[in-house]
C-alpha cells in the first residue's frame, strides 16, 4: 500500500457537501440550479447521479471538475473535496494538475469532443505529454497502448486515423482512451451512451466495467436512464429539481425505493417481456425549471402520494432510511412504494 493509499483509506475519494451552484437567470439575478447537494464516492466505487434534464446532475458533475465558472455559473456554497483537498476555491493553475491525472470526464457527444483536424493518436499523445510530461515517442506508444485497452481493433494502425473515420461508439472509446491515458483516479461520464445504439451502449458499458476492474478507477456516472445505471453502479444518487431526493446502494434504490419520484422512474421503464396493457406507467407533468421551484416538496405537483396539507408547504429534509440510504419525503414512513417488479 502506498502512502497515498493509506492516507486515503479512511475517507472517501470524493466528498460533495451542501453544494449550491447558481447561474444567472434571464433577469440577470443569480438563480440556484443545484442546492444543498451532498454525496460521497469511495476509491474504486461507481456511483450514479441520476435525474432528468433540469435536475442539476450535469451541473453537479461540472462543479466536481471545476468547470462551473467556464460554463457561466458560480459556486455559492458548500464544498467539494477530492482526496482530502478542497476544490471550490482552487486556483485555475492548480486545476490543470488535477484534471488529467486526478480526474477526467467524457461526454454524450464524443465526436464533438474530438478535434477533427488531428489524428486520434495525436490527440491522446498531446494529452499525456501535457499532463504526464512524457516524451514524444513515449506518448505515441502510450496512445497505441490506450487504444488497445479500450478494445479498438488494430490499435497500432488506427492511431493514425482521424475522428471522422470512427463510428459513434468507437469515438466514445477514443474519448475514454484519451481520458484514461493519464491514469485518473476518478472518471466522470456524463450520459456517455445516450447518443448510441443499444447494442453499442451495451459494449461501452462492458468496457467501463472492464476498465474499472483493470485499473481500479472510480466512476461518477451521470445519466437519466436508471436501466443503464443498474448495469454499472453500486450506489445511486437520485436528483430532482436541484437537490438529492434519494440515495442508497443500488439494491436500496432499485428494489426498495423510498421516494415516490424514484418509484415513478422505475415504473416508467419498459421491461422486456412484461408487455401488459400497452401503456407505460408515466409520471404526469414535468420537472420545474430552476427559478420556478415550488414551495414545499419540489415533487408535490406530480406525486401520487401527496398530502396537500403538508407536502405543498413544508420543504422536506433528507431523512436516513437505512444504514446508507436517505430519502427526502415527508411521508417516507407512511407510503408503500414498489421497486423493480421481481419474480
Amino acid at each position: 500500500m502506498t502512502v497515498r493509499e493509506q492516507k486515503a483509506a479512511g475517507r472517501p475519494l470524493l466528498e460533495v457537501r451542501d453544494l449550491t451552484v447558481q447561474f444567472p437567470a434571464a433577469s440577470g439575478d443569480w438563480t440556484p440550479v443545484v442546492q444543498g447537494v451532498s454525496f460521497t464516492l469511495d476509491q474504486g466505487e461507481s456511483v450514479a447521479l441520476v435525474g432528468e434534464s433540469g435536475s442539476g446532475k450535469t451541473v453537479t458533475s461540472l462543479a466536481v471538475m471545476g468547470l462551473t465558472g467556464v460554463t457561466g455559473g458560480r459556486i455559492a456554497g458548500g464544498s467539494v473535496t477530492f482526496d482530502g483537498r478542497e476544490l471550490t476555491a482552487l486556483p485555475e493553475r492548480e486545476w490543470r494538475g488535477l484534471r488529467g491525472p486526478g480526474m477526467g470526464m467524457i461526454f454524450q457527444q464524443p465526436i464533438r469532443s474530438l478535434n477533427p483536424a488531428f489524428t486520434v493518436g495525436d490527440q491522446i499523445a498531446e494529452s499525456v505529454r501535457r499532463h504526464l510530461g512524457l516524451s514524444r515517442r513515449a506518448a505515441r506508444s502510450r496512445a497505441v497502448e490506450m487504444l488497445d485497452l479500450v478494445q479498438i481493433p488494430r490499435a497500432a494502425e488506427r492511431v493514425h486515423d482521424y475522428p471522422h473515420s470512427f463510428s459513434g461508439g468507437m469515438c466514445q472509446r477514443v474519448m475514454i482512451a484519451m481520458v484514461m491515458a493519464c491514469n485518473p483516479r476518478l472518471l466522470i461520464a456524463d450520459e456517455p451512451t445516450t447518443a448510441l445504439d443499444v447494442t453499442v451502449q451495451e459494449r461501452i458499458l462492458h468496457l467501463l466495467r472492464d476498465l474499472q476492474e483493470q485499473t481500479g478507477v472510480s466512476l461518477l456516472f451521470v445519466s437519466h436512464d436508471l436501466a443503464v445505471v443498474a448495469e454499472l453502479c453500486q450506489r445511486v444518487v437520485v436528483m430532482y429539481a436541484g437537490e438529492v431526493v434519494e440515495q442508497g446502494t443500488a439494491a436500496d434504490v432499485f428494489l426498495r425505493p423510498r421516494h415516490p419520484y424514484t418509484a415513478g422512474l422505475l415504473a416508467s421503464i419498459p421491461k422486456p417481456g412484461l408487455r401488459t396493457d400497452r401503456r407505460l406507467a408515466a409520471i404526469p407533468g414535468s420537472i420545474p425549471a430552476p427559478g420556478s421551484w415550488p414551495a414545499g416538496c419540489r415533487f408535490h405537483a406530480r406525486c401520487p402520494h401527496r398530502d396537500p396539507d403538508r407536502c405543498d408547504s413544508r420543504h422536506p429534509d433528507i431523512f436516513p432510511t437505512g444504514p446508507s440510504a436517505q430519502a427526502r419525503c415527508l411521508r417516507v414512513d407512511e407510503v408503500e412504494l414498489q421497486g423493480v417488479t421481481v419474480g
Partner: protein
Amino acid sequence: MSLLDVSAISKSFAGRDLLGRRTRRLPAVHDVSFSLEKGECLAVVGESGAGKSTLGRIVLRLIKPDAGRVVFDGVDLLALGSREMRRLRQRMQMIFQDPYSSLDPRMSVAEAVAEPLLVHTDLDRAARLRRGAELLDRVGIGRRYLDRYPAELSGGQLQRVAIARALTLNPSLIVCDEPVAALDVSVRAQVLNLLRELQEELGLSYLFVSHDLALVEVIADRVLVMAEGRVVEQGDVEQIFRSPTHEYTQGLLSAIPVPVPRDAAGRRMVGIQGAP
C-alpha cells in the same frame, strides 16, 4: 387492401470521399417489402445505418427509390405527379426525433400547428387557429401556451406540438422517426402513451422507426428488423420478443438494459418476471 404496400424497394446513395469525389455507391436499403394495415403500428428496428430512416422517407416519397413500388391506399406513389403527390401527402405525416429542430423557432405554437391548414385548405385564419387550439388541447398543451415560442417549451412539450401539427390534416399514416429518443425517461412514457391513445381514437397507422426495442414492445403490433439495409426478420411483436429466429434480433433484444442491479459477482440480484 392494405393501407400501405411496399414491395422490393432498393435505394443506394452516391458515396463521396473527403474531397467530394464520387466513390462507389453505398446501398442504404436493399429489396425491402412489407405492408401496413389500417390502424396498425409497424415498428422498424435496427442499429444506426441499418437503413430504417431512409425507408421511412421513401414511404413518404421524400426520397425516390432506385427500384420497387410504394402503394398507398391503392395509389402508386412513384407514378404520381408532384401536384397529386402534394394532395396525397396530407394523409401521410411525419414526426421527427428532435422537436427542437423540427419546429420553426420564429413561429408561435399556435401558428406552427395551424400552418399546414394554410397550405392545404381554404380555412380562414380564425378557423385555422381554432382547429390548432383544439388539437393542442388534445395533446395536452393548454391554451396558455398558444402564443409561446418553441424556445420557451420543454422537449416533451415540443414533441406534443409536433404531434398536434402532424394531426391537423387528419392523416391516415404517420411515420414516427425515433419520436421519443431525445426525451427524458419520465416524459418518454407520457409521449408514447399519447401516441398510443391517438392511434386508438383516430384509427391511425404508424410506421414507428426506433432503435429502442423495449419501447417497440409497448407500441407495435408488428416488427420489421433491419440490418445493413436488408430485412432480417419480420413478425408479430409477441413472436419477435418471445422467439426471435435471427441472431441479429437476438443480439438487439439481449442488449436492452434491464433495471435490476448486479451483485459483486456481476449477477442480477433478482430475475424480472417474464423476462427471457
